[in-house]
């Protein structure tokens, strides 16, 4: 029997988890790259630490820098399930942890009414596993193989939700009054993401490891492009990444993220662009892939595009 992880008792536990994570961060970065996620060194360290200290990882950063992708890549890497809880305003226990299947319970009670069954037995039957609806948080702690639990955009949820999330993240158990306490069969790797639309509580921040995800540097963005867009030329990828780096420094309403870069690269590739400087018109016309508001499109004129192109080697 594998010893259950008891977070908070000061043990850096030696887990029986897959071996990839217990390797060094260089290995991890390489393994992540194979799944299509190009991690920087800091992020690889953070991921190794989440495993060593069994703390959740809080990723903060602008929209579109690839926070959610981290969790997906991690799940891919571990060949385990990704359980995702998308947060929104008004998210509550019954949507996040568990709910009884009331309709079925009512039916079951009705069906047994005539049979003269013992009331206690009916109650026992009705409040059993069969009638329990698992929601993401409960599902995550009841997997055989530790899954990756992605709690996306935690800043959109209410503060009350944050409080009981904190409870689950520290004890890894859920108490259901009718059933008793459900302990974790495995401890999920937890990744939280936040766009910073609301200030998170200090308690939650303290509980988590923190990593700030910035827009990737041009060489890293180029590597991301190469891993995501098939058939893209390395030189073109670097050119695109450099141009994007400069474009992000412009005063834009909505700064384009990595997803936009990938779209744009695919568009340029599809149009047969070999070198940005040779097809200035196409570059200008396809900027709709990255500029998503009217003001931004008005701001990045042909002259601005030419100036940006001038900075690209």
């Amino acid at each position, binding site marked *: 029997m594998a010893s259950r992880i008891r977070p908070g008792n000061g043990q850096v536990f030696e887990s029986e988890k897959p071996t990839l994570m217990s390797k060094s961060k260089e290995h991890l970065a390489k393994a992540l790259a194979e799944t299509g996620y190009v991690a920087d060194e*800091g992020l690889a360290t953070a991921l*190794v630490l989440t495993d060593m200290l069994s703390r959740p990882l809080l990723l903060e950063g602008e929209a579109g820098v690839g926070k959610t992708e981290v969790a997906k890549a991690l799940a891919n890497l571990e060949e385990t399930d990704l359980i995702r809880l998308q947060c929104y305003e008004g998210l509550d226990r019954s949507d996040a942890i568990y709910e009884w299947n009331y309709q079925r319970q009512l039916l079951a009670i009705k069906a047994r*009414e005539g049979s003269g069954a013992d009331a206690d037995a009916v109650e026992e039957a009705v409040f059993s596993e069969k009638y329990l609806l698992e929601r993401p948080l409960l599902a995550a702690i009841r997997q055989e193989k530790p899954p990756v639990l992605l709690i996306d955009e935690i800043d959109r949820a209410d503060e009350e939700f944050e409080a009981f999330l904190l409870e689950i993240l520290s004890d890894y158990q859920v108490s259901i009054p009718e059933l008793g306490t459900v302990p974790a069969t495995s401890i999920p790797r937890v990744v939280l993401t936040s766009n910073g639309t609301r200030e998170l509580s200090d308690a939650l921040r303290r509980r988590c490891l923190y990593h*700030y995800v910035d827009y990737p540097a041009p060489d890293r963005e180029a590597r991301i492009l190469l891993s995501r867009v098939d058939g893209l030329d390395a030189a073109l990828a670097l050119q695109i990444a450099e141009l994007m780096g400069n474009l992000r420094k412009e005063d834009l309403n909505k700064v384009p993220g990595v997803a936009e870069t990938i779209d744009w690269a695919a568009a340029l590739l599809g149009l047969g662009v070999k070198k940005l400087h040779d097809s200035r018109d196409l570059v200008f016309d396809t900027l709709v892939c990255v500029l998503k508001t009217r003001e931004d499109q008005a701001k990045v004129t042909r002259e601005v595009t030419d100036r940006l192109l001038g900075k690209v080697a």
Partner: protein
Amino acid sequence: MSTLRLETHEDVGAVLRERLAGFVRTLRDNGFKVGLAETRDALQLIRTTLVKHPKSLKAAYRCLFCGRQSDWKRFDELFDAYWLERGLKTGVKVTGSSPKKGMKTIRELMDAQGTKQETLAGDVERQPGEEDEDSDDTPTGRREGASIAENLGQVDFRNMQDPDALEKAHDLAERLARAMRVRLTRRDRQRRKGPRLDLRKTIRHSIAHGGTPIELIRKGPRHRQLRLVILLDASGSMNNYTSVFTRFVHGMLDNFREAEAFLFHTRLVHVSSALSERDAARALDRMGLMAQGIGGGTKIGEALADFNRWHAARVIHSRTCVIILSDGYDTGDPAALGEEMKRLRRRCKRIVWLNPLIGCEGYEPTAGGMQAALPHVDLFAPAHNLDSLAALEPYLAEL
């Protein structure tokens, strides 16, 4: 032999522990929220093979100790200063440092304003009820007498020096805040077909009827707070009002958990953290320290541009009401102000511009900045006395 080795090993451990404790203290002094659990984990990390090199130790500790972006940005510097003993470049706090001298605090400003008011009492516009008792040579006379209290609501803040009056302004702000609290969520507005059933409660109640759900319980509306963002002008032209408005804003922040306050003159300062102090006097002191240089000129356009660029995405969402407290006298470019107002308008639910000058007779919003801003303002209201603030209540409550 083995015992000897063990001892030296433990000595090294003790030294390290002490150094680490010192580091944690430094972090706490710099506003990092670091608990015992983090220190413990940090100790464990030292013992692992992960950390053989200062660079990876730094990366690991950064993950562990940082809680927010501002921590993240400062961490490297603190780490280098402590462990690698490199000099500090920018404002890192050393324990026990005293606040800088020579800054103008808001309280000083309030005091200064008090004396100025008294010497200039003759210029001050008279209020009904104070005419007979009040004369130029007995300025203190204005502070007493029942007739004053009755008319407090109409007294222009310029003329209000009484602590009681300020206290009342505070109370009023609280009432205002309460009225604005209740709000239905998006989900509730979706419920065109009637409220959702609360099955858990319905079943519980059906026990009395042998399991037949006769009584249907529905989910009640969720009460939601409205978010307020207050931008307070603290320039020289607003001197007469700054003190009472800061109290008013402090009252707002007391009651709203979701409220942010900014102060601006020639630049923009985020003062929410100072105002979260419960004691009003201390809150104002802290705010005064943060908002160095108040009482100067105003560049509303630039302040708003700063706000739009650095803060708006974080503090504004669709249920936000932005309140600007300013007289609209702007030394910046009116066109720029108009542009920034337009950007702000698109982000938030509503913009309220409170202008104390509206209370003055014959005031027309002719100042260039005010003209440029007006088209984007949803409510342009006076804010020169308590009654005018109270009149806002119904308007803001229905947001």
